[in-house]
């Protein structure tokens, strides 16, 4: 059986006027640009309240790093009180969305995704030895974990910049 090493979950929340369609496209584009297999597992619309409808999207994406490691990224979008509004921006009418949006960024690193080591008890023992003494000892595991973690941060930065949040920017942008 393969083993998972989760990254730390981060949450982004914004309430106000957002270009939700643009954000959707820009974030989806990132997965294609970074060569991830992308799936939208859930896309749900609920009647919500008088303040507006409710949306939910669950995205999962994965990418093979090599024959042993695979990166998984999971995103969960939840928007409440969604209302389409028209705004005049630089003299042009633009359709934007007024809502309360929450994005959860999560992911994990899957080790031995081909189940090469899990077929026998000896294989499982080798798997533990390989992880503990070869990969961990040389800091390779930490490197892969860091790569996934900081790449997810880059995606989060893109979302923050697109929504023009005050906390846009990332001092760690040159890492990975």
């Amino acid at each position, binding site marked *: 059986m393969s083993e998972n090493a989760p990254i730390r979950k*981060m949450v982004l929340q*914004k309430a106000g006027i957002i270009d939700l369609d643009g954000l959707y496209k820009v974030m989806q584009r990132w997965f294609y640009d970074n060569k991830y297999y992308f799936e939208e597992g859930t896309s749900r619309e609920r009647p919500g309240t008088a303040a507006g409808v409710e949306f939910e999207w669950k995205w999962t994406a994965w990418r093979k790093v090599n024959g042993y490691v695979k990166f998984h990224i999971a995103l969960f979008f939840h928007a409440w009180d969604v209302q389409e509004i028209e705004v005049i921006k630089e003299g042009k009418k633009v359709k934007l969305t007024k809502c309360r949006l929450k994005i959860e960024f999560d992911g994990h690193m899957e080790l031995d995704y081909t189940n090469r080591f899990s077929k026998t008890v000896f294989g499982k023992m080798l798997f533990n030895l390989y992880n503990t003494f070869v990969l961990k000892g040389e800091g390779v595991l930490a490197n892969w974990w860091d790569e996934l973690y900081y790449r997810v941060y880059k995606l989060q930065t893109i979302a923050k910049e697109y929504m023009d949040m005050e906390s846009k*920017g990332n001092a*760690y942008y040159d890492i990975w």
Partner: protein
Amino acid sequence: MAERDVVVDKLRLSYEGLFKVADLYKLVDGWLREKGYDKREKRMAESVVKTGKFIEWEMEPWKKITDYAKIVIKLRIILTDIKEIDVEVDKTKIKMNQGKADFVFDGYIETDYEHRWESKPLFFFLRTLFDKYFFKPYTTGYQSNALDDVNDLHTRIKAFLNLNRYSDVAYSKPGFNFPGH
């Protein structure tokens, strides 16, 4: 479960006046990078209300010192009634923000974060024994480093907000600095 020693407990800072929110974020983010911390933004929330913007940042960056111990800083920044205003500096108009800022700093030392010493009761007992009696100078040194870092961040933010003229009680050191850190 990894054990957390509280080094700084709810050190607070409040400010009301002019500052740039984006620059404040850059300062904190840049400081963490400079000091070798791994970034962790647990929750970044922003909403527009009648009185201005409400922003809440919850960060928990960490720095591994050894395979056994790491420093964790918990920083909560709450910005309320943030408005954008134009300020004239040297006859040039600059966009600034006005509002309230509240900061809460916590500092911890997290030991056995890889959960190696908790699989058996004997290991757990040994860990406690070694922590208390044998590794005490090391632990005190780590605590001191965590304290220095929290105090430095606190001072930098105070300098950014131009609050240095007001003196307040800084957290005192629990021990000496651990050599090499």
